[in-house]
């Protein structure tokens, strides 16, 4: 049995193909050289993947997202925010904007939901430290 049959690990060719498809999409986007596009925090990758997934589901044109991202970056450049530069914060703003413009999601609803998420402690179910192995497969000598 191979890894791809049991489904624990994906196969490298599939990932390579998927990567080429995504990069064709991303290479036309404004702002952010290679360094800025690197993911520093897990949420950045999640936001990145969601924008591509929502586009795949036909909720907006890629050009809309592109324009929305340019707009957010331009606003930052004009000093409206006075915030430190974060490529993926602009990415998230752009995603929220196109979703709102297309009537998918309201800002108020997202604010409410965010507060709910923050009220739940992180990994609420898994706080206890487990100090012994959970399983042992003994040596056969």
């Amino acid at each position: 049995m191979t890894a791809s049959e049991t489904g624990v690990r994906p196969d490298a060719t599939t990932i390579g193909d998927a990567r080429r498809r995504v990069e064709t999409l991303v290479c036309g986007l404004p702002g952010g050289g290679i360094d800025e596009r690197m993911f520093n925090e897990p949420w950045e990758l999640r936001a990145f993947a969601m924008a591509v997934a929502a586009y795949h589901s036909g909720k907006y044109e890629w050009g809309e997202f592109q324009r929305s991202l340019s707009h957010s970056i331009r606003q930052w450049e004009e000093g409206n925010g006075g915030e430190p530069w974060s490529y993926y914060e602009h990415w998230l703003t752009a995603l929220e904007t196109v979703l709102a413009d297309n009537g998918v999601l309201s800002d108020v609803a997202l604010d409410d939901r965010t507060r709910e998420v923050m009220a739940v402690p992180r990994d609420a179910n898994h706080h206890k430290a487990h100090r012994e192995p959970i399983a042992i497969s003994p040596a056969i000598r």
Partner: protein
Amino acid sequence: MAGPTDTRLNTQEEITARVKALEAMLIEKGIMTTEAVDRLAEIYENEVGPQLGAKVVARAWSDPEFKARLLADATAACAEMDISGLQGEEMIALENTDDVHNLVVCTLCSCYPWPVLGLPPNWYKAPPYRARIVREPRKVLAEDFGFVVPDSVEIRVWDSSSELRYWVLPKRPEGTEEMGTFDLAALVTRDSMIGVGPAASPSS
């Protein structure tokens, strides 16, 4: 154009919550599935976070005093190398030896020492790994990861939680006696630090 993010996103914690909320809402509305987002995220999962674990391992292989400090208190030893914990939770590095092989799972969710290892791979978060690796670790390592642990070696499976995160200090490969830390670090794979594979051999 509407400007939906009037709320100041002051902390990484807030923005993490906002992204999580957004994902939950889009899934509920049927716009995407968790699997679709996972599949896209998987493309880049090896490229998130500092992934400094390989440097820590290479130093531990080369510097016995550092290795002793690492095994005594991984959080403090990593701090020496400017690697911080998330919110100060504890990390333990488990040393693989000729007699004991360690591997790490999070049985409930996906607790993972990402400041050291980067983002967890999708399979780490998936139910098949979380369940099967605990029940039949030797078999899963051999069948799913092509990694045969000799029968003479005991396998210990450790459950990471949000309070205490484990990672593995793999065995130093044969034939690396002359190598410096820079070259050694290149042999340390993410999988070897989860315990589902060996460190790479210098010949391969």
